[in-house]
């Protein structure tokens, strides 16, 4: 280790070990880092589809998705640009609930999440099943702001947040990994913040 002359740092982020390596606590802020122009989605025409390697491709409208079993996430989120937001919460449904109805076939091993903007990101199926991923429309008790992916986004909080597609519309299950928008531009295929998988090869 070589120290930077005179640098002391600010040291936030609670108890040691709370932040993944290379991350800092952004506090109450929530940066916006979308690559595309923020879309304005009409909930009356919005729907979410699960297709690909499933027994029964399914589409739910906004009204239908709200009839599903509610679920929530409370905890920390981590952006590859090094901010982390601690003790935050989202409400919506578990991705497990959608997959239970669509029923992945045995060869399904990966997923691609697609936004209404055309943004895509790839995920191992194991990273969005077993209570690890949600479709959400509330943040800390309020409707999810549009610049943060509202009205409806996906969250996969145990991975870097570019894996949590804003303005989610489709989850496609595949029998192979297919890199998405940032992944073909040098970012990691999995993106585990605790292993600092920021870029391809990390």
């Amino acid at each position, binding site marked *: 280790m070589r120290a930077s002359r005179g*640098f002391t740092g600010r040291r936030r982020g609670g108890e040691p070990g709370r932040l993944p390596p290379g991350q*800092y606590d952004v506090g109450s802020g929530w940066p916006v880092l979308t690559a595309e122009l923020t879309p304005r989605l009409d909930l009356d025409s919005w729907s979410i589809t699960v297709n690909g390697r499933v027994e029964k491709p399914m589409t739910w409208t906004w009204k239908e998705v709200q009839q599903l079993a509610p679920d929530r996430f409370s905890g920390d989120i981590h952006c590859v640009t*090094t*901010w982390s937001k601690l003790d935050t919460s989202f409400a919506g449904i578990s991705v497990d609930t959608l997959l239970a109805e669509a029923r992945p076939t045995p060869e399904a091993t990966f997923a691609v999440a697609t936004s209404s903007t055309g943004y895509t990101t790839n995920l191992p199926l194991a990273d969005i099943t077993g209570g690890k991923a949600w479709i959400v429309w509330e943040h800390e008790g309020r409707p999810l702001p549009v610049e943060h992916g509202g009205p409806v986004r996906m969250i996969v909080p145990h991975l870097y947040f570019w894996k949590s597609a804003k303005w989610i519309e489709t989850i496609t299950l595949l029998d192979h990994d297919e890199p998405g928008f940032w992944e073909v531009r040098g970012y990691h295929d999995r993106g585990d913040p605790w292993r600092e998988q920021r870029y391809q090869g990390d």
Partner: protein
Amino acid sequence: MTEPAPTPGPWTFATVESVRPENAHVATLRLRVPDRRAHLPGQHYIVRLTAEDGYSASRSYSVASPPEDAGVVELTVDRLPAGEVSPYLTEDVVAGDEVEVRGPVGGYFVWRGESPLLLVAGGSGVAPVMAMLRSRRLSHPDVPVRLLFSVRAPEELIFATELGPETTVVYTRRTPPAATRPAGRITADDVAAVAFDDGPAYVCGSTGFVEAAATLLAQQGYDRSRIKLERYGSSGS
């Protein structure tokens, strides 16, 4: 894509050749990077600072210099008042210091010679488009280029000596004495005056600025696939 974006190299220690103030809160660090991988205009570097006890903090900064500038990377840093890294880089670092860096990073907000080239920048968001403007001057002089540069007041303008007839400066709060356009945020007329019929537009600034500018561009006939956005000042400090 015609070619993949350069992947970031390993962490390495760069030597600070100079620190050049651009205005009261923006400075450019000229870094000599060992085994530098040439960047694409628009890419950024990560800077990591480490305290004596091992605590470290890292942030991303756009490269303002063109890839043609051999061996050297210039990072233009805006000092954020409550920042952790930017005050150190703009106030404490001096020539001869070593700074740990990794790059180049980012494969989306990059220019590979597409023509014609429209650049739209707010404040220190001009840094990555400056790399494009400089690279175009050195390697693609035939590419038509226009820069629409929004700043709050005359003393906020940076890189002024390098801006020529391709640049239109919009002052949002206070204008220089001779200005004909009144102070105010960029308008549809400002965008109409610089828009091209084809080619990409690169828009960089605060998220409010890029949303406003990109919306005006869309109204001017730029479809979403032609507009690339980079949001500044929000990824931290």
